[in-house]
């Protein structure tokens, strides 16, 4: 950059020619003006940032709660769900290759449900992210697709927002199902000899979600006790 301002210590000292002198002057002038502008506008931004910070945090929380609310109604528990989390290491059994958090819902101190993230790696167009609420009794209370890239208009019915059937969306058939009702062998789409429906012509998406939910349910069911027992903000280890 401005070489003339950082002289090479080993170089012989030279008297700069007049043109160079003006370079120094103009450089420092522009630098000062730019500095002033920067300070003013950075201050503006910083001020906005601090002014909006609480609102942003609140809306991030609200967003998370809204998602969770879809699988676990607020009325079912009374603790501060987001504060009662256990962090999971990357968990292949759930299809997750990143850390995640399991939230626990309690009513009057007794565990009622937990909210688990999972993923189906084998959707038609790759990964399908899932959020499951699993009851203390090991039932799948409800499930939602959090993100997916299934073909719009074909495989995207797994997301109830896109499902044409608004009254009983496809994913509703998993509500309150557990291995007591459907044995793990039959936790499959009908085409594979299981119990769950799938839209004709787009079985793959349904199959992926069904299988992933089965795996997640099995995994969580086995570790139910341990997961509820861990203190808040603890790390879960297998």
């Amino acid at each position, binding site marked *: *950059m*401005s070489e*003339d*301002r950082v002289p090479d210590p080993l170089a012989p000292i030279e008297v700069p020619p007049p*043109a160079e002198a*003006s*370079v120094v002057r*103009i*450089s*420092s*002038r*522009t*630098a*000062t*003006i*730019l*500095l002033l*502008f*920067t*300070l003013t506008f*950075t*201050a503006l*931004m*910083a001020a906005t*940032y*601090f002014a909006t910070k609480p609102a942003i945090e609140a809306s991030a929380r609200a967003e998370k709660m809204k998602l969770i609310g879809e699988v676990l109604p607020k009325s079912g528990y009374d603790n501060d769900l987001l504060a009662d989390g256990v962090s999971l290491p990357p968990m292949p059994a759930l299809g997750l290759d990143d850390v995640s958090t399991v939230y626990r819902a309690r009513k009057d101190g007794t565990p009622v449900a937990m909210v688990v993230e999972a993923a189906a790696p084998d959707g038609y167009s790759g990964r399908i992210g899932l959020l499951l609420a699993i009851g203390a009794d090991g039932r799948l209370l409800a499930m939602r697709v959090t993100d997916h890239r299934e073909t719009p208009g074909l495989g995207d019915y797994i997301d109830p927002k896109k499902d044409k059937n608004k009254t009983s969306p496809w994913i509703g058939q998993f509500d309150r199902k557990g291995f007591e009702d459907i044995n793990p062998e039959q936790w499959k789409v009908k085409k594979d000899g299981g119990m769950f429906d799938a839209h004709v012509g787009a079985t793959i998406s349904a199959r992926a979600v069904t299988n992933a939910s089965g795996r997640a349910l099995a995994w969580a069911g086995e570790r139910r006790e341990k997961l509820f027992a861990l203190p808040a903000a603890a790390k879960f280890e297998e």
Partner: protein
Amino acid sequence: MFSALFVMALGAVILGAALGYAAVKFRVEGDPLVEKIDSILPQTQCGQCGFPGCRPYAEAIAKGEADINCCPPGGEEGIKKLADLLGREFKPLSGEHGVEKPKSVAVIDENVCIGCTLCLQACPVDAIVGAAKQMHTIVAAQCTGCELCIEPCPVDCIAMLPIAEAVDNWKWKYPVFDIAQRRAA
């Protein structure tokens, strides 16, 4: 808050200094674009574009002060080339500046000419030869057809004649087949 100000201030100082330095050190001299534009203009030097000659118009285009469709002698063809050079969209010749005419040369009626030298002074490309009080003639090959000599002539002896077609400058026409033939088939 302060870390924000500090970080950005650091960036600002470095950048400002560097830019100021660059601005002085690497000022661009001359504008090669003007040359390129000028070489497209027809050099008729007629001033119909509203500038005193082709080069001033070229400079105005380069600066973005003039549109590319103001030169009637250059015609659509010239506008197309300018649009290409400048990456702008083609637009038809603006009507304010005149219309594209067939290329002509000025001819002096040598019987009428009184040798006043007024046309000589008006011709931007020195295409008129003659001395004071003598009959003047126009070197047809050098006349750009700018019509600037017509106005000053006190006896109206200069006329513009379209360049005649001859076997050597005859051009093959754009092949068009008449509609009747198309319809017939």
